[in-house]
């Protein structure tokens, strides 16, 4: 059953319109809710008057900060109020630190009544200084979280080897500053959900998220009720990419249902965000500024790196410390670096919070590492592929944390395979003898270039997080197994996870795919799966399924009918970085990827098009090749958006372009002319059937491969993203490209 491109189970419902997303769920006698965002990047609430709003006909209740039993949430630190307002038991809850902070939840008979009431809520604010620059925030003149001593709430270090010796051994040093921007997830389905009290009295929320049991935990915490009294169900999910990791409508919906129960009203509540609410109201990929120096010997060996990285965490810690950790490690790339000195800071500002987004710190880190490698290659006169092969980590060698990477390092394979594939002729283009030199330039304004980059990314949660995944597998039948039911919480955010789960169950049990049924993503029936993120879901779930199937088969042999196996998979524990040196075993395992691109740039207009992408991605073992190729193609185009078209603009903490006509995700005519996916299967020793996580990896190296190709085309390096036509033009002009006035 593995290695087959089984059609995904949910596709039929999605093409016929019968699949239900959170905003599609119909219940009798719905009430409608609206959230009031504060719209205040930094201000203290002085007064809030809801009298006029409450008098609007049809308004049922208005929930405020004082109504939240435990007014806090957050995935790693409970630093975010459920609502900003007065009389909250949680200190400092009267301060809005983000324009997307919530001030009130209005529940009414109709959406119109809720909206009208929302308009009538009067709030008086005392303006506080709005801090939007992380560098300014680091001076701590304005403290954004009153309870904290500093805006810098996380600082990681790497101290490895002897820096003086490293620089002394360097024949070439490349020193640069890089700036990478925020990115909006722009999943097509804006946040929505419904909540009600289920038949067993549980506060039940149907919503699109990435981890049912974490939603459940955070709802229970805020409502101050036991977890068992909260139920979370995920219907069809319209994309996630990390953007649904944090709480959007989960807690407020549950709070509304709890309040309605207290009022004796047994009616479900629904909420639907607009696109603008979605863009303003959830976190973004982190903007990061990185200053770095890399040294290498004439022969190509890296001798030392020094990095200072400042990550704009925005107003709350939406996993910023973890993203920082990943960026902190991936900034060294998959390379053997004997001497390193790295300081990375996560800093609170009044910007939109930074948070999880496909790659989770690795796109930022790898952009720096790969740009540095490409520059060193030029400075040393060594082919960029050769330079990488000289420096990549091998089994048993000390990585940046001074410990070996887990066994199964395939970076060399992906680099070689990607480079080999790229050598093949493509649609008549002249292919030069060694990989990454210029294609023939257009006589006029079009210049063509080639670029290469590679990356590694951890699979699963790191730094000591207690990773786990639970699965139930039930074997039914009498003499033979007629039917297999798998119960698992893992979220199918669109990647096709549930289809892959069932394939793995069929493989483990040894039955045809058609005999497997799934019960997914409902805390009432499934165990904790962990999150659909960090390229971990197939990997962890596969291990859980294997364990559960093994137990079920044992019971089956003992004539138990049905035979139900439960297994809680726990991977080997990981470690937090050592405070002073960073020495640790921080990650469970890794995925490896390399990409090569052909790019055309119009030096007059600054327009960039990608002619060809070759992506070599080690997936360990392909469970469903079609789904994997879909992940690669989707990641490449999303990364093209990150590198080229997407430009989130903000002013004084307000996002200015929260819509699709001004925040430009790639359209169907922006895609590369050709995306070639090379699925490499070098097994991960710890992965189920050798499977590796893969869905983030193809995103990561694209941006530095594009900037390398741009250098190849124009002789100019680009250290800042996005590469919008205006930015490209300006940079080309400022660096005085010949024959460009």
């Amino acid at each position: 059953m593995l290695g087959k491109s089984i059609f995904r189970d949910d596709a039929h419902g999605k093409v016929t319109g019968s699949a239900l997303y959170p905003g599609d769920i119909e219940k009798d006698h719905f009430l409608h809710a609206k959230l009031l965002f504060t719209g205040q990047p930094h201000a203290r609430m002085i007064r809030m008057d809801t009298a006029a709003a409450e008098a609007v006909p049809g308004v049922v209740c208005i929930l405020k900060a004082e109504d939240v039993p435990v007014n806090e949430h957050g995935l790693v630190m409970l630093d975010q109020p459920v609502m900003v307002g007065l009389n909250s038991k949680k200190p400092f809850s009267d301060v809005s630190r983000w324009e997307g902070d919530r001030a009130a939840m209005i529940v009414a008979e109709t959406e119109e009544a809720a909206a009208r009431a929302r308009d009538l809520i009067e709030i008086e604010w005392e303006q506080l200084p709005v801090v939007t620059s992380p560098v300014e925030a680091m001076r701590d003149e304005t403290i954004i979280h009153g309870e904290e001593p500093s805006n810098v709430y996380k600082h990681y270090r790497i101290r490895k080897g002897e820096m003086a010796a490293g620089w002394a051994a360097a024949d070439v040093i490349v020193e640069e500053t890089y700036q990478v921007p925020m990115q909006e997830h722009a999943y097509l389905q804006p946040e929505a959900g419904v909540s009600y009290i289920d038949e067993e009295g549980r506060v039940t929320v149907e919503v699109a998220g990435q981890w049912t049991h974490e939603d459940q935990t955070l709802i229970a915490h805020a409502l101050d009720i036991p977890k068992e009294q909260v139920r979370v169900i995920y219907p069809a999910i319209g994309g996630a990419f990390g953007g649904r990791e944090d709480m959007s409508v989960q807690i407020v919906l549950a709070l509304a249902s709890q309040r309605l129960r207290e009022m004796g009203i047994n009616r479900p509540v629904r909420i639907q965000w607009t696109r603008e609410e979605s863009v303003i109201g959830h976190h973004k990929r982190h903007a990061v500024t990185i200053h770095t120096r890399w040294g290498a010997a004439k022969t190509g060996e890296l001798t030392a790196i020094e990095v200072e990285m400042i990550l704009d965490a925005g107003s709350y810690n939406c996993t910023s410390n973890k993203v920082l950790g990943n960026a902190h490690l991936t900034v060294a790339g998959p390379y053997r670096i004997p001497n390193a000195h790295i300081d990375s800071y996560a800093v609170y500002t009044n910007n939109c919070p930074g948070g999880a987004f496909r790659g989770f710190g690795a796109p930022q880190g790898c952009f720096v590492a790969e740009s540095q490698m490409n520059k060193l290659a030029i400075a040393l006169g060594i082919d960029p592929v050769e330079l990488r092969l000289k420096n990549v980590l091998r089994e048993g060698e000390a990585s940046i944390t001074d410990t070996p990477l887990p066994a199964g390092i395939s970076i060399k394979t992906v680099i070689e395979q990607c480079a080999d594939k790229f050598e093949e002729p493509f649609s008549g283009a002249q292919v030069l003898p060694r990989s990454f030199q210029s294609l023939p330039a257009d006589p006029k304004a079009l210049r063509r270039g080639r670029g290469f980059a590679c990356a590694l990314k951890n699979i699963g949660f790191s730094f000591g997080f207690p990773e786990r995944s639970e699965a139930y597998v039930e074997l039914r039948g009498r003499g033979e197994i007629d039917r297999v039911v798998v119960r698992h919480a893992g979220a199918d955010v669109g990647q096709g996870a549930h289809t892959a789960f069932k394939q793995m169950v069929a493989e483990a049990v040894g039955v045809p795919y058609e005999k497997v049924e799934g019960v997914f993503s409902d805390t009432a029936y499934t165990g904790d799966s962990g999150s659909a993120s960090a390229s971990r879901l197939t990997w962890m779930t596969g291990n859980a399924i294997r364990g559960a199937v093994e137990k079920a088969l044992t019971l089956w042999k003992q004539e138990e009918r049905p035979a139900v196996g439960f297994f809680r998979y726990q991977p080997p524990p990981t470690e937090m970085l050592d405070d002073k040196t960073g020495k640790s075993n921080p990650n469970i395992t890794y995925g490896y990827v390399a990409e090569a691109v052909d790019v055309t740039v119009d030096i007059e207009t600054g327009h960039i098009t990608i002619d060809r992408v070759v992506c070599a991605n080690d997936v360990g073992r392909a469970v469903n090749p079609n789904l994997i190729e879909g992940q690669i193609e989707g990641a490449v185009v999303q990364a093209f958006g990150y590198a080229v078209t997407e430009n989130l603009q903000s002013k004084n903490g307000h996002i200015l372009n929260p819509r699709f006509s001004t925040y430009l995700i790639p359209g169907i005519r922006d895609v590369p002319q050709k995306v070639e996916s090379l699925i490499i299967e070098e097994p991960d020793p710890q992965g189920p059937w050798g499977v590796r996580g893969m869905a983030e990896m193809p995103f990561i190296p694209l941006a530095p491969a594009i900037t390398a190709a741009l250098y190849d085309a124009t002789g100019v390096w680009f250290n800042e993203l996005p590469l919008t036509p205006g930015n490209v033009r300006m940079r080309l002009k400022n660096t005085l490209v010949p024959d460009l006035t």
Partner: protein
Amino acid sequence: MSLIIAQNIKETANTNGELRAGGTDLQERRRSRISAGPIIDIRRLQGLDQIEWQADGSAVIGAMVTIDAVANDPKIQAAYPGLAKAAGGLATPQIRLMGTMGGALLQHTRCPFYRHPAYNCHKNGGDECFARDGHNPNGVVFDLGPCVYPHPATLGMALLAYEAEVDIDGVGRRSIDELYGDGSDPTRDHTLEPGQILTHIHLLPPIPQEKAAYFRSISRAEAEWPIVECLVRLVISDDQITFARIGVGGVANIPLRLENVEQALMSQSPGRETVEKAAQLAAAGTNPLPQTVDKVRFLVNTVWHTLEVLSPKS
């Protein structure tokens, strides 16, 4: 071709209501609550959804004709190729099918500050232009008045290059120049008063040998407001340019015609040198904002590129 529109429609519009044609702009402003009064749907007004051809070969386009109909009408494509190309190059297929010619001309600015609830700009009852200060690369390079966000009407620019005129019901004929004014009044996107209705667009008789090109400089392949756009109409006869009209958009708070570039092309041979020299003149008279200094060159390049499409020798 006049049309007397019920007085009560005009009065409602005059108080706090808004007229609705295709609705593609209005519906967006309704939900962001920039427009909140009653709507008067004029989509079904009789007689405005036709392209009529006059005895002299010229077209009169009703205000309710869709953008798609103009883009795909074979007679328009033959008679006014630049107009058809500009109409086919804007927005998305769905928007072109709903959006009307009248609505396209009279849409409100796409400035993010105008459409942001936290800002009250000149067009929203305030007295400031927030786009002036800061880092918005979409600003103007011809600074004509307090509002410095470019006018969004691609078709306004196209019709300016075609020297078209419009009928305003009960008021009379106006040139496109008059429709948009000189850009000095920051509270307006056009010069119509509330309740006034644009009913028809009158084109001049077509010029049989005309060649036209339209180029929209944007950062995505399609479906974006122009950074710079340019429409060129040329007649080349015996290796001489005998007629030239150049419209540009995205560079001022009104659509513009570049008459100096047109003059530089006249009577010249349409070779590389002519095109290059004429295109440089697009920069004349620009007074960019600090953040749009580089956009002047972008304007020149866009004009150059559009001219090159039509210039047989370059």
